Structures are given as C-alpha cells and as structure tokens.
C-alpha cells in the first residue's frame, strides 16, 4: 500500500527548492520542479531536484515538459542511478492544478510523491509535507484521486551532515556568514562544548546531593556509564603511551619543517644561471 510510504529527503534538496523559490519570476506565486532519487521497498530517497518553468493562472496550468525531459537527461549523464520519484511545489496547498501535474508525473514514475514546502511559512514554520495519490470513489462510477500524506524524514550522508552543521553556525550572526575554520579551532570549540556539558552534569549531581533535586535512577545509570567509560589504565602506562604518541607527532612536525626548509634551498638551484 502506498500510504505507508516513507520519504527520506536530503537537506540539499530543500536548499535547492528554497533557492528556486527565491529566484522565481515576478508573477509566479509558486515554483514546481522534479524530484530525483531512488525507490526501494517502501522507502523513497530523494537526493536531487531541479526546477521546471511553468505558468499557472486561474483555470489552466502549463508545464514545460520538454525542459523537464532534457534536464532529466542531463542529470542522468552524471548520475545514471537517479530516477524521477516525484515532484515538488512551494506553498502549502494542494490545488486542482496539482492533480494534473501529478498525473503527468505518474506517467514518468510509478507512485510519484508530491512534496510541498511551505515557503510562505504559514504559522511560523516551514512545513514539509509529502503526498501520494490514491484512488477514491465508488468503483465503476465516479472515481477521483486523493492525496494521502506520507511521512517525511530528513536523511543525509556523513559529510553532508558536517556541511549542514557548519552552515548552522551562520544562522545567528548578523551578516549570516560563516568562514571555514581551521582544525585547531574546531577542536577547541568542541572542547569548550564538552566542558559546558560536564559542568551541567556536575551541577545536577551537586543539586541531588544537596537534596534540591530528586535523584533519578535512569540519569544515575547514565552517569555510572559515563564515569566507567574512561578506561582504567595504570597512570604510568598511560603516561608512556601519551608521551610516545606525542613524540611521534612532534617528530613528524619537525620533519615537515625540515622538508620545507630543504625546498627553499632547492629553489636556490633554480636561480643559478645555466
């Protein structure tokens, strides 16, 4: 049954949809486009998308089908495993025109999903909804289609996750900019975050001991796990391991600097006239 379909969407698709919404023509109220991805036993994974120009008025809708087809061909050249899995539109309502567009897409793919992204942000949230069409009505007499909601999930590859995290940092800055930080700064900020978390835990434990907060056994068990996860190693052994690791790294740094000096000397050879 198609109604218990699960949609997994990559963040890149959402960014792309927003970008095409921002670039829409003056008179267009919403943007539509094709969703590409793969389909596997009840799970649809949407990994790419592209916008399709369309004209919409009160009583008719025209979609540039040739454009859609040629874009799909181009995308297929890069990634031949991506198939059309549905289409998207911005705006939160599913109108009559959507049914027509959905029909076109059901010719291109079986069980196409229709994704709506509410860019106008009704209710202060950007809602993501996915629909699949099911036939309703009395068989033999008037039949119609109904859009049944499907569940939406955000999924991403590991590096995508890192990318999104970096972008998250730019949310609250005045210029909305975030520069790529060096490794050391990243480790430092992770260190401060860990320290804050440990601080919170310590406060909680102090409060429980002073009787201000009631002790919770599940939290207690987590705390026990936490403390015991620091491996119990003989301090001397640990010192040895640490020192040898440190020595390796320092030696590597020394070698790197030495190589660089050697390179500079090598440059001098080039300046000796032949």
């Amino acid at each position, binding site marked *: 049954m198609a109604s218990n379909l699960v949609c997994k969407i*990559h*963040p*890149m698709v*959402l*960014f792309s949809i*927003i*970008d095409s919404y921002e670039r829409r023509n003056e008179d267009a109220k919403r943007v539509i486009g094709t969703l590409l991805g793969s389909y596997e036993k009840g799970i649809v994974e949407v*990994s*790419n998308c592209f*916008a399709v120009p369309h004209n919409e008025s009160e009583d008719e809708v025209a979609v*540039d089908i040739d*454009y859609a087809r040629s*874009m799909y061909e*181009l995308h297929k*050249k*890069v*990634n031949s495993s991506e198939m059309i899995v549905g289409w998207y539109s911005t705006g939160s309502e599913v109108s009559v025109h959507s049914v027509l567009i959905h029909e076109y897409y059901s010719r291109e793919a079986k069980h196409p999903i229709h994704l709506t992204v509410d*860019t106008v*942000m009704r209710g202060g949230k*950007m809602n993501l909804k996915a629909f699949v069409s099911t036939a309703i009505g009395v068989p033999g007499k008037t039949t119609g289609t109904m859009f049944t909601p499907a569940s939406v999930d955000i999924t991403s*590859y590991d*590096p995508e*996750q*890192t*990318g*999104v995290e*970096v*972008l*998250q940092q*730019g*949310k609250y800055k005045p*210029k*909305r900019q*975030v*520069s*790529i930080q*060096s*490794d050391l700064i*990243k480790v*430092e900020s*992770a*260190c401060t975050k860990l320290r804050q978390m440990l601080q919170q835990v310590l406060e909680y434990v102090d409060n429980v001991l002073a009787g201000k907060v009631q002790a919770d056994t599940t939290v207690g068990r987590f705390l026990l796990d936490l403390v015991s996860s620091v491996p*119990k*190693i003989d301090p001397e052994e*640990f010192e040895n391991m640490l020192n040898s*690791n440190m020595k*390796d*790294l320092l030696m*590597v*740094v020394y*070698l*790197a*600097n030495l190589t*660089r000096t050697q*390179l500079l000397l*090598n440059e001098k050879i*080039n*300046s*000796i*006239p032949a």
Partner: protein
Amino acid sequence: MASRRQDSHVQFVQIDGLVALKIIKHSQEEGAGGTDLVQGVLLGLVVDNRLEITNCFPFPRHSEEDDFDEMQYQMEMMRNLRHVNIDHLHVGWYQSTYFGSFINRPLLDSQFNYQHSIEESVVLIYDPLKTTQGFLALKAYRLTPAMMKFYKDADFTPDAIAKHSISFENMFEEIPVVLKNSHLCNALLCELAPPTKRDEKYNFLDLGTSAVLEKNLRQLMECVDDVAMDTNKYLNFMRQNFRQQQAKQQYLQKRQQENQQRQVRGEPPLPEEDINKMFKPLQSPPRLDCLLVANQIDQYCNSISQFSAQSIAKLFMAESLQENAGDSAAASSTSS
C-alpha cells in the same frame, strides 16, 4: 580598461550553502566517497571585492564518449538554468582531492585556461575524506598574475623562471572562503536543527590519528623522491654544461695559438669554424614539473603540521580526563 580590471581583485569568495551541499553530495555519490575525482562548474557573479558563487553543476565523468559531449552538456545545462533564473555566468570550477594531492599539471592547465578567459575564476578544492571526519574542507585557489604570465610564455627554462621570479610559493594564492545563506535558508536551518541534531557526532575527536598521518607521510615521501630525481637530472645537466663550456674555451684557445703560430710562420690562418656545430648546445631541462612538485610538498607539509597540532590538542584533552579519573580513584581509595 585593462589596467582597471587588474586592480579589482577578488579578495574573498562567498559560497552559498546550497553550492557546498551540492559539491558534497556529488563527491559522495560519484566519487565513491572520496577515492575518485569529481569535477564540476561553478556559477555566480562578481560583486565589489568578492566572488559570489550561487550555484554549480557536476560534470559527468569521462566515459568512453568523446569530449564533444562535454561542451554540449555544458551549453545545454547553462541554457536550461537560465530559464529558471539561475546565474549562468561561469566563475570557476571545483574538484575533489584525495588526501590533498591536487597540485599537478592537469590542474594547472585547466586553471590557466579558465583564468585566461575569465579573469576572476577560481578553483575550489574539496576534500571529501576530511569532511567525513568532521571538518568541512573547502579551499579556493587562483594562479598569481606572475604565474599567468610565466605560463603564457610556455618557456620553462631556468632563465625564464629567474626572469619572472617564480618560486613555488607564489604560484597559487589561496583566497579565503566564506559561506553565506539567505534568510529563508536560515529559517530552513532552524527547521532542520532538531531532526539532525541527534546525529551530531564528535568523530573528529577521535584519537586514532596514525592512519591519516601514515598516508600523508607516504605521499610526502613519493614527492620528495620526485624532487630528488629532478634535482639530480638538473645537476647532471649543469655538470655537462660546465664541461662543455670548458671544452669550448680550450678549443678556442688552441685555435688562437695555432693562428698565432701560423701568423709567425706566414701561413694563412685557419678558417673560423662554427663552434656551435662542434659543440651542440644542451637543452635546458624544463623546470615546471619540479615547481609543481615543490608546491605539492609544501601543501603536504602544511596539512601534516595542522593535523599534528590538532592531534596534540586531543592528546592533551585525553590526558586531562585521565588525570581526573586517576585523582578521583586515588581520592576514593583513600576515603574508603
């Protein structure tokens, strides 16, 4: 007009979040997570002193079809993107790299071609393996003006290098990269924060650093071998050149002596022979590859130093944790 364009130098590169995510996704899907090279085109425009990159599209990998498809693919893609109001101006290209080994001849050639036709174009290097570990590794590079002039002459002898004063340090210049999002994107990020936060991993705090270091060092060794070989060849050339010069001098001297003797004896002097025909001048070896390898070594050294610095920091963190555990163990043993 020409001089004005040279002054308006792009000082930093501003990338839309969408572009970063697209590059990541392309490399993940096509590059088998980082082992294969992926390339693509960057689109955007130049505003004031920054280069804004607003969109990108990937290149299909070189399959059995000929390159003509590539041009057509590009043209069609740009035409289609124009329909949906996406910036269709070429401003550069991107490439993924494997452990930082991207300074080679093809890159230089492509970047030169790009920069020749579009002055502000940059090449974005994306390191997928580093990003998987938790650091977003996107860097923008451009050839320096001196390097452009040098490459145009296509004369890679040591004299040309000295004339243009090219060293491996001023071949490429790195331009700072900034990521920027529109307000609507920020709203989306706020939406995405809860579902994705549970996956927040701290895998860059991993202490297992030896594998990466080993790999880097091995590549460094190969490059150093290359430089050593190249230097040997160059030294050989210089030695031969020197010997040739000496031989030439001796021959000239002998000639002069003979001529003098003949004059004394009253005989006509020997005809001047073309020296060059006797001693063929040796070709100076091209030094471009050596420069590239030197630059590559520099890159490796930089990344190794950075990586080691970060590993040392992590070791110190682990040490402090262990100390606390040791202290508390000692305290608990004394109290009980």
